């Protein structure tokens, strides 16, 4: 990640980027490759929000152990997001409830939002990218 400092498109424009994480952390590559885009966007000094919804809430679950499926465990990256000035993490309450999870099951501090609050937050964004 050393190539990510001081990226700039030269325009000085700062837009609100929302990344919508909808998939479980493993089983498909979307969560892993999605995180790469999040980090690069932050390196461009954009206003980044992360939303975890549907099975995406599992990305933040404590106690992930990938030894049995022999794939990389990237869950510690979520803890490092603060170091990239990515501090707006939102989780959809309906998705948590549907999976029997609470904030205490998650590895990072998040803001839990109701459906209407989530809809309002989305409406404020300039760019929404869904993984």
């Amino acid at each position, binding site marked *: 990640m050393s190539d990510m400092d001081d990226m700039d498109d030269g325009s000085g*424009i700062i837009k609100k980027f929302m990344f919508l994480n909808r998939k479980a952390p493993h089983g498909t590559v979307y969560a892993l490759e999605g995180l790469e885009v999040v980090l690069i966007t932050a390196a461009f000094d954009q206003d980044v929000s992360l939303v975890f919804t549907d099975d995406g809430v599992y990305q933040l679950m404590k106690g992930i152990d990938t030894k049995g499926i022999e794939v990389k465990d990237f869950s510690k990256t979520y803890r490092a997001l603060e170091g990239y000035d990515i501090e707006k993490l939102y989780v959809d309450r309906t998705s948590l409830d549907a999976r029997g999870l609470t904030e205490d099951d998650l590895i990072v501090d998040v803001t839990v939002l109701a459906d209407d609050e989530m809809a309002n937050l989305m409406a404020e964004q300039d760019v929404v990218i869904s993984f």
Partner: protein
Amino acid sequence: MQFGILVNEGPYNHQASDSAYLFARAAIEKGHKIPRIFFYHDGVNNSTRMAEPPQDDRNVTTRWSKLAQDHGIDLVVCVAAALRRGIKDELLAPGFRISGLGQLVEMGIQYDRLVTFGD
């Protein structure tokens, strides 16, 4: 209006790249501009000139190349996603180039809309 397009799925396996192509064509026909299309995840598989679909099927890759040539569209394939899947410079069809994710972020910053086609 300027549209950026993000294609997240490979050809034939998933309709996302067909939909992205049809959207791009329709937007251009309506007078909109599509300066760049970015290929990510398995979407990078849209770029290989090694693909040989059956004669009676559409050729997704050559279709992208023609659209790019006709309308000056920059077809960008993510380098990290490409390397992971064996897509190299020497395999690229005309109009495609390999570059970094910064090219995708720039689309979000500079264009009026960024439209994602994926699963």
